């Protein structure tokens, strides 16, 4: 029973840790499937985390925080679109620039507004997204096996976790079953085909970049107002890049990307549990090595376990009518 509970709690934190990765990776999905490379996932998440924590601290509402987070992330997304779509700038350079701006801006504004060394005030429980207990969770708790699974694993997450998971099938449906999805995938593969079909490449790419902005906004808000209780300097700590790696591992498809996010999150969850634990035959492994586990896993997976990942053909290339 204890092993089961231990394992369930490991999976439970896997889902918690996977949520921001998943939202950011799906943001990347929309952007890159439309042909706009998004290195700036990290920066968008970071400004969203900051704006969300700041707004939640001032107005005392997680929902206001979420709204502020999304708006902040959208602002960066628009900037990225303006640089890369309207002005046909280099998408990688623009993304890197946004990351640097986000890192500096959040630290400076945080310090100026709250004077807490770049942190925002600790959020009280009602200014955060709390855990939801699903119906019958308590009642069914006693049922062997299924009861604990339902209680520990399925129930008891905040609403953003469920939202992130729901966005996966929704994204699949949008991408493969709707007009917008068809056009989105087409513009990332061959924008000239979209243009000659009489559809605006610019409008499509802006839509994709803005959707990415909204999703990064939710991801960032999750970090500071659901998983955490306030903002800390550079609290995304590379999650945006990890999300990008998950997107590549998932070969730019929504469902495989979900599994890639879960794998990274599982490694992360395992890592916290392994700290200070003596492994049989090895003894206690240095904390630093264990903390590096998720990143080692990323490198290993990307280096060759997934086969060839073929990006959307037009990604990274601004659309210029050729002559």
């Amino acid at each position, binding site marked *: 029973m204890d092993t089961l509970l231990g394992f369930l709690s490991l999976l439970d934190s896997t889902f918690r840790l996977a949520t921001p990765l998943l939202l950011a990776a799906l943001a990347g999905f929309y952007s890159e499937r439309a042909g706009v490379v998004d290195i700036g996932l990290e920066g968008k998440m970071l400004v969203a985390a900051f704006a969300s924590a700041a707004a939640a601290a001032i107005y005392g509402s997680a929902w206001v925080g979420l709204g502020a987070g999304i708006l902040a992330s959208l602002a960066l997304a628009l900037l990225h679109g303006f640089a890369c779509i309207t002005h046909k700038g280099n998408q990688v350079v623009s993304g890197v620039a946004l990351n640097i701006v986000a890192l500096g801006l959040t630290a400076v504004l945080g310090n100026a507004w709250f004077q807490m060394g770049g942190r925002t005030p600790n959020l009280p429980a009602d200014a955060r997204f709390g855990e939801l207990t699903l119906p019958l969770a308590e009642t069914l708790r006693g049922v062997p096996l299924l009861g604990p699974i339902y209680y520990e694993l399925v129930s008891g997450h905040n609403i953003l976790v469920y939202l992130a998971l729901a966005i996966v099938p929704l994204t699949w449906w949008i991408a493969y*079953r709707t*007009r917008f999805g*068809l056009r989105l*995938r087409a513009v990332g*593969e061959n924008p000239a*085909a*979209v243009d000659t*079909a*009489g559809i605006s490449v610019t409008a499509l790419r802006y839509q994709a970049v803005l959707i990415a902005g909204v999703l990064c906004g939710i991801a960032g808000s999750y970090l500071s107002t659901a998983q955490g209780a306030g903002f800390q300097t550079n609290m995304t700590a590379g999650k945006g890049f990890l999300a990008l790696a998950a997107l590549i591992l998932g070969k730019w498809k929504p469902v495989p990307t979900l599994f890639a996010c879960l794998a990274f999150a599982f490694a992360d969850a395992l890592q916290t549990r392994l700290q200070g634990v003596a492994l049989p035959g090895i003894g206690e492994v240095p904390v630093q090595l264990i903390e590096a586990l998720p990143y080692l896993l990323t490198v290993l997976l990307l280096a060759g376990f997934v086969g060839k990942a073929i990006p959307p053909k037009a990604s990274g290339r601004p659309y210029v009518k050729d002559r």
Partner: protein
Amino acid sequence: MSAAPPPVSPAWAVELVGIDKRFGPVHANRDVTLRFAPSSIHGLVGENGAGKSTLMSILYGFYEADAGEILVRGKQVDIRTPQDAIRLGIGMVHQHFMLVETFTVLENLLLGHEGGPVLGPAMQRARAEVRELERQFGLEVPLDALVSDLPVGVQQRVEILKALYRGAEVLILDEPTAVLSPPEVEQLFRILERLRQQGRTVLLITHKLKEIMAITDRVSVLRRGQVVAEFITAETDRQALADAMVGRKTSLSVDKAPSHPGDVLLSAQNVNVIDGRGVTTLKDACLNVRAGEIVGVAGVAGNGQSELLEVLSGMCRFDSGTVTLKGQEIHPATKYDAADARRRGLAHVPEDRLKLAVIKEFPAHESAILGYHQDKSLSKGWRLNWKQVVAKTVSLMEQFDVRPPNPNLRTSLFSGGNQQKLVMAREMEREPDILLVGQPTRGVDIGAIAFIHRQLVSLRDRGKAILLVSAELDEILALSDRILVMCDGEIVGELSAAEANESRIGTMMAGIKDAPVAEGVPA
């Protein structure tokens, strides 16, 4: 989308009146007036850069004209975007297909014409409509196959079907036969005939005069952005069209004396190449090229000619067999790369100019020394002697009539023909004993073709061995002293210039071995 019924006998399907277009300093179209009749195939010919594609892109709303009017079925219209053109019943099949390769055929047809925000029901409707169009025009395509899995001929049919599905009454085809094999060309022409019968207007842009003669009703000739002549096809001939295109008398045939072959300079014995997928792309290739002769290699693109050139020029390894260069044997284990080949007196004009012969972004003088940049005459110690490089380029440009003769101009700013002349100059200038030439006149205008052909013949007459690979049968027939035909990675036959003709080579290209193996090919 089923097309609207054709209106009651309008005089013209489309009229372009006084179209003018400039791109910066380039005056692409000057006061062009053209009229296209319904139920007809109208040819548009001209050399590269004559303004054909620009004109059609204006009609399709890709560019806007600086001046002039467009009338569709007698009514003046304003075409600013492809969407406008599509709505007016104008469709275009671009030279580079506008297809999403990772999509199925049906998804490609739907793009931009989905019929609702959700695809499901629209897909079913589209399937039925497309089937109807396929029946009407004899255009079979597998609707659920991925475009990337289809041969180019079928991809082109998808493009035509796409235009028809969007209701095209007027169909523009830009160089549609450039990528097709002869049987595919015939199939395309049958489809175009069918379109004409069904009352559609076809605008065919090409620079192949034979095709114009074979299928069009009328033909307009463009030169330097202007319409210089219009003919009723039945009342003209290829010579008249060619003269109008280049603006002076040209000869389509090459004057050359009989060859006097000397020693074998280049030979291959049972050379095999197996590619990464395990497919044998070059099978037991045997050939001899003698001093003072041009050996032509004919075949449908992709039947081993490229591999043959790559092996002989040292660009790719072979798996078994022997290549002999001026008496020296090269085995699969021998170190032999492009630089070795050059040192041994073998020069190579590759098939794909922009990928393998020049660097588009480099100035002409840098492109003009690629491969010979280590040459002592071009260096000062370990540095390049730029003065010498530029002087060398100027002299190359002079000898080969490269225009404009500006060694500092970016390579991409030269026309295809002038880029090719620069490459030919670079490779021929050091009087190589053996010259490999791939597609010497692909994308080259008629004036430059004649020049390049003369240069090749004169090199032959100076006692050099030339191996010529070309997809243009006319070129093979005009230049070669002997002709090898390849099919499916194999050399399936050999003909002397005297016994060769188009139909005989055509049968051999299709893999039917008829000719006896003649002199020069070891059994």
